[in-house]
C-alpha cells in the first residue's frame, strides 16, 4: 500500500479532533460515575455498575478508533451502499425480533448485551448520502436526485418511527444542513423557519388572527414591492367592507356569527379578487402571492389539526410544557422541571464532583443517559456546563473546517453529515434539559451512558478523521 504510509499516518491525523473526542468521552464518564455513584459500590471498574460498563464501552471504542484509522479509505467509500443496505435490514429486523424498552421496539438483546441499530443508521445514511451526492457533476436541484435523497433519508426515518422512537427518527432532519451546503436554495431553510414560526405562533393566537396577519403582510408586501398602493388599499377596503357587512348582518338578524368565520370570509374575498386580477392582467407576482398565502393558510390549519388530533397526548403535553401553556411538575413535566432544578441548583461553580444532591437523590430520571447534562450542570456549575457547550461547538466547527478542506466531494459531504448529526444531537439534548426544546429522548453524543450510542458516534467521527488523513487523494 503506497497511499497509506503507516509511518506517517500519525502526522496526518487531526489530533485536535481526537483529543476533543477523548475529552468529551472521559468527562462524560466522570459524570456517569457521579450519577450512579453510591457508597456501597465504590470500585470504579465493577462491571455490575453502569460506570464500570461504560468504561468497558470506552475501551472498546478506543479499539474501534484505532481499527478505523488503519482501515483503507477505499473500503469506506466502496462499502457505503452495502453498509446502508445492511443497516436498513437491521432496522427491519429489529421491528420483527427486537425487544421493547421504554415503549420502543428498537433493541436487539444478545445475552446481557443490548444493541440499538437506530444509532448506526445515522452513520449509514451519512455514507450513502456522501456516496450518492459525491458523484461527478451531481446537481441537487434535479427532481430525480431530490427523490433519491428523500428516499435515502425517508426509509430509515419511517423504520425508526415504526419502532416508536420519534427522537431518533427526527435526527434525520439534521441532514438538511448538508443539503443546504450542497446546493439546496436558501428559501428551503427559510420556509422551514417560517413554518416553525407559524406553528409556535399558532399555539398562542387564534388561527383567524394569524390568518389576518398573514393576509395583511402579503398585501403589504405586494404594495411595497410593486408600489401599487391604490390597488392594495382597494383590496383592504373591500376586506374591511366584508367584515362590516358580516357585523351588520349579525346586528340585523340577531344571530351571533363567530368572528373567525367573518374574518376568514373577508380574507377569502380579498384573495379571490387578487387572483382574478392577477390572471386577467397576467400579473405573475400577484398569482404567486395568492398561492403562497393560500398555501400558508392550508399549512396553518393542517398544523393545527396535526397538533390537536395527530400528535399523541404526551407529545402535545411536552410541547405545551415547553411554552408554559401547561404546568405539570409531578407528571408529564416532571423530567423537565427536575432537570431545571438540578442544573439551576449548580450555581456558578457547581456543588463539586460527587456532591450533587439532586444527582445523588436520583431526582432526574434517565440521569446517566438522556439527562446526563444535569449532572454536569449541578456538579460543575455554570463554568462546567459552558465548557461542555463550547467544546461541542468547537468540535462541530472544527469538523466543518476540516470538511471544507477535503478534495473529494465524498469526504466533504460526509464531514458535513458528521458535523450536522453531532450538532443536532447536542443541540436538541441540551435544549431539552434547559427548557429550550420539548423533551425529546436522544442522547448527548459521547457523554450519555450506552455502548451503541458511544460506538456509533465514535465510528461516525473517526471515519471522518480517517478520511481527512487522506484528503489529498481522490476517492
Amino acid at each position, binding site marked *: 500500500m503506497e497511499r497509506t504510509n503507516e509511518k506517517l499516518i500519525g502526522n496526518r491525523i487531526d489530533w485536535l479532533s481526537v483529543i476533543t473526542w477523548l475529552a468529551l468521552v472521559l468527562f462524560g464518564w466522570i459524570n456517569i460515575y457521579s450519577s450512579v455513584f453510591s457508597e456501597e459500590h465504590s470500585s470504579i471498574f465493577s462491571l455490575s455498575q453502569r460506570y464500570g460498563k461504560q468504561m468497558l464501552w470506552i475501551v472498546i471504542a478506543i479499539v474501534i478508533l484505532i481499527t478505523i484509522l488503519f482501515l483503507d479509505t477505499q473500503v469506506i467509500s466502496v462499502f457505503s451502499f452495502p453498509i446502508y443496505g445492511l443497516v436498513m435490514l437491521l432496522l427491519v429486523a429489529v421491528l420483527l425480533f427486537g425487544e421493547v424498552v421504554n415503549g420502543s421496539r428498537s433493541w436487539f438483546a444478545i445475552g446481557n448485551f443490548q444493541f440499538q441499530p437506530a444509532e448506526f443508521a445515522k452513520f449509514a445514511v451519512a455514507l450513502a448520502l456522501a456516496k450518492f451526492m459525491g458523484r461527478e457533476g451531481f446537481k441537487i436541484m434535479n427532481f430525480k436526485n431530490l427523490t433519491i435523497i428523500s428516499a435515502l433519508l425517508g426509509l430509515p426515518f419511517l423504520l425508526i418511527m415504526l419502532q416508536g422512537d420519534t427522537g431518533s427518527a427526527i435526527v434525520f432532519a439534521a441532514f438538511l444542513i448538508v443539503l443546504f451546503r450542497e446546493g439546496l436554495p436558501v428559501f428551503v431553510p427559510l420556509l422551514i423557519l417560517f413554518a416553525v414560526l407559524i406553528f409556535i405562533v399558532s399555539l398562542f393566537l387564534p388561527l383567524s388572527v394569524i390568518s389576518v396577519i398573514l393576509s395583511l403582510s402579503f398585501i403589504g408586501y405586494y404594495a411595497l414591492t410593486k408600489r401599487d398602493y391604490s390597488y392594495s388599499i382597494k383590496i383592504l377596503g373591500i376586506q374591511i367592507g366584508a367584515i362590516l357587512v358580516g357585523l351588520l348582518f349579525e346586528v340585523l338578524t340577531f344571530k351571533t356569527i363567530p368572528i373567525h368565520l367573518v374574518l376568514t370570509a373577508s380574507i377569502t374575498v380579498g384573495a379571490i379578487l387578487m387572483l382574478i386580477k392577477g390572471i386577467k392582467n397576467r400579473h405573475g407576482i400577484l398569482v404567486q402571492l395568492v398561492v403562497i398565502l393560500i398555501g400558508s393558510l392550508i399549512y396553518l390549519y393542517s398544523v393545527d389539526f396535526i397538533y390537536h388530533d395527530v400528535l399523541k397526548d404526551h407529545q402535545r403535553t411536552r410541547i405545551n410544557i415547553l411554552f408554559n401553556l401547561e404546568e405539570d411538575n409531578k407528571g408529564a413535566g416532571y423530567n423537565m422541571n427536575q432537570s431545571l432544578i438540578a442544573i*439551576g441548583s449548580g450555581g456558578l461553580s457547581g456543588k463539586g464532583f460527587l456532591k450533587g444532591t439532586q444527582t445523588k437523590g436520583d431526582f432526574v430520571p434517565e440521569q446517566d443517559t438522556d439527562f446526563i447534562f444535569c449532572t454536569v450542570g449541578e456538579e460543575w456549575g455554570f463554568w462546567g456546563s459552558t465548557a461542555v457547550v463550547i467544546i461541542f*461547538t468547537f468540535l462541530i466547527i472544527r469538523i466543518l473546517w476540516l470538511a471544507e478542506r477535503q478534495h473529494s466531494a465524498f469526504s466533504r459531504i460526509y464531514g458535513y453529515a458528521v458535523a450536522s448529526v453531532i450538532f443536532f444531537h447536542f443541540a436538541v439534548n441540551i435544549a431539552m434539559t434547559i427548557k429550550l426544546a420539548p423533551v425529546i429522548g436522544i442522547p448527548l453524543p459521547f457523554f450519555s451512558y450506552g455502548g451503541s450510542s458511544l460506538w456509533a458516534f465514535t465510528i461516525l467521527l473517526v471515519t471522518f478523521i480517517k478520511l481527512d488523513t487522506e484528503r489529498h487523494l481522490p476517492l
Partner: protein
Amino acid sequence: MKPKIIVIIAFFIITAIVFIGKLYYIQVLNVKYKLSAQNNAFRHVTQYPARGVIFDRNGKLLVYNEASYDLKAIPNRVGEFDTTLLCELLHLTQNEVRQTLRSGRHLPVVIAKQISPKQYAVLQEYLYRFPGFYAEKRTVRKYPESTAAHMLGYVGEVDRSDIDRDSYYRSGDYIGKSGVEKTYEEYLRGEKGVQIYVVDVLNRIQGSYRNGEYDTLAVAGKNITTTLDAELQKYGELLMSNKLGSIVAIEPHTGEILALVSSPSYDPNLFVGQQLSKNYNRVANLPDKPLYNRALKALYPPGSTFKPVSALIALQEEVIDPTTVFVVNGYNTGSHIVKDHIAGAVGLEMSISHSSNAYYCHVFKKILTDKKMGAVDKAYENWKQHLHAFGLGVKLGTDLAYESKGIIYPATYFDKYYGKGRWNHNTIISLAIGQGELGFTPLQIANMTAAIANRGYYFIPHIVKEIDSAKINKLYTVRQNTGIAERHFIPVVSGMEKVVTSGTARIAYHPDLFICGKTGTAQNPHGEDHSIFIAFAPKDDPKIAVVVYVENAGFGSTWAAPIASLMIEKYLTDTISRPLVEVRMINGRLKKEE
C-alpha cells in the same frame, strides 16, 4: 469562504450563545431552582402519637390501641411480584392493586390500610417477595368490653372539611367521628412529631437531617376516665336486648352519666380497621338504625313523667299548695273530655302516685289563668321558662356530640297557629299531661329526674370524669338551679315514693332501695305507645337517677318500671334479688320480628 458556510457556522455559534445565556439565567441569575432543590431533598416523616385510652369510672379499660399496619408501595420501585398471592393475602382484587399502583410514581401509595396484626404476621412472611412494598405501623382502636358504642364513638379518616377546619390534620389522618372520641379529640389525639430525612426521589432515606436536630417527638394523647360504670352500662344493654329504646342513669350529686343505653346498639369493634366503611354502611342501613343515639337525639313527649314538674311549678307559683284537692271525673275542656285513671277527690301526692290526668289539667289551668300570671301568653312563657330551668327544651351542653334541643313552642307559635288571643289553657290542654307539642330526649328527662332527686338543682350531665388526672371543665361542677324552693319537693317526692309503694309502679318496688319514681306513657301516633319510667333512689340521699324508655311497650309500668328498678338495684347493691323479673325483662321481645 462561501456565504452559506458562514451562515451555517453562525447558526452553530448562535445556538451555543443562546445555550450559554440560558444557562447563565437558570444557574446564576435565578434563585428559584436552588430553593426547589432543597424541598426536593428533604422528606418530613410524621411520627404518629398513640391515641389516649379511655377508662370507665372504676378504672376499667374501655378503649385502647392495638397495632395495625398500612401496606404501602412506591410504584416505580415495585418489581415483578405475584399479584395473585398479594391479593389473596389482603383480600383485594387484582384490579384494585393495579389501579392503586398506577396512581403514583415516586411517592408512596397505600395498598391496604389497617391490616390486623394477625394478617400482618402472615403477610410479613411473604413481604420479601413483593419488592417495592413496605408496611407502616399505625394503631387501631380496640374495645375490650364491647359496650357503650354510642358514647365512646369511633375513629375514622379525616374528611375534607376536617382538614379545612384544622390545619393539624393531613389527608389520611384519623379523627374522632362521634361520642367521646369526637368531643375530646383534642386531648386524645396527642401531638404529631416529625422527623426530617434527606431522601432521594424514590423516597429512599439517605439519612436523618443534621442528626435529627430539627426533629420533634410525638406526644402521646391524654388518657380519659369517663363517668361510665361499665358493669351498669353492660347490664342496661342486656336488659334492653331485643327492645327499642334507651336508658340514662345519672349520679344526681355530680351530674355524671353512669350509663347511657340506646337500643339497638352495635359492637364498637365493628368500626375499626379495614372493615370500617363496609360495616358502617351495613349497620347504618339496618332498619332499626343502631347508629341513631336515641338517648341523646330521640324526642318523645314526656307523658305523665312530666307531672312532678308540673306540680313543682304550681307550688312555686303558689297557685296550689300541698293540701290542694280537686274533685275529678275526667276534665272537660268544653269541647272534649280528658280521660282519667281515677275519679273523686284527688290530693297532690295521690295525683302523682295514681297519675291523675284531670288533676294536672286543673293545675295547668291555674298556672295559665291565675290573675298574678297576667295574660295567657305571658303565663305560658313563664311556665316555659320553668321548664327550661329544668333543662327541658334547651341544649344541656353535655360533652357528648349531637344532643337534641327538644321541643317547647313559644307562645307566638300558638298565636300564629290559632290566632292571637284565640287560644287558652283548654286549647293546649294536652301539654298539661305531657302530650302534644312537647318533645324531650331521654337525657333531658333523666336530668330532670336528677334535679328532683337533688331537690332543686342539677349538674350538667357529662361523660368525662378526668383527663389524665386533671379535673374536668368547670362548667360541669356548677350547680344549675331550677328555681323551685326545696320545701316544695317534700310532697312531690313523697308522691313519687308512693308510686312505687302503692301506686302505678308497685312492680318496681324493692324493700331496701327506697325508690321514688313516676310512670309515663308517650303517645305514639305510629303504633303502640312508648313505656317510660323515671326513678331515683334512695329517697333521702339519692345516688342514682334513672330514666327508661321502651318503645311500643304500652303502659309505663309494664316494662320501663321493672327495668329501671333492676338498674337501680344493680348499681346500689351490685346484686339482683329478683331473678324472675330480670329474666322476663331480658327475654322480652318488643321489636317487630324481621
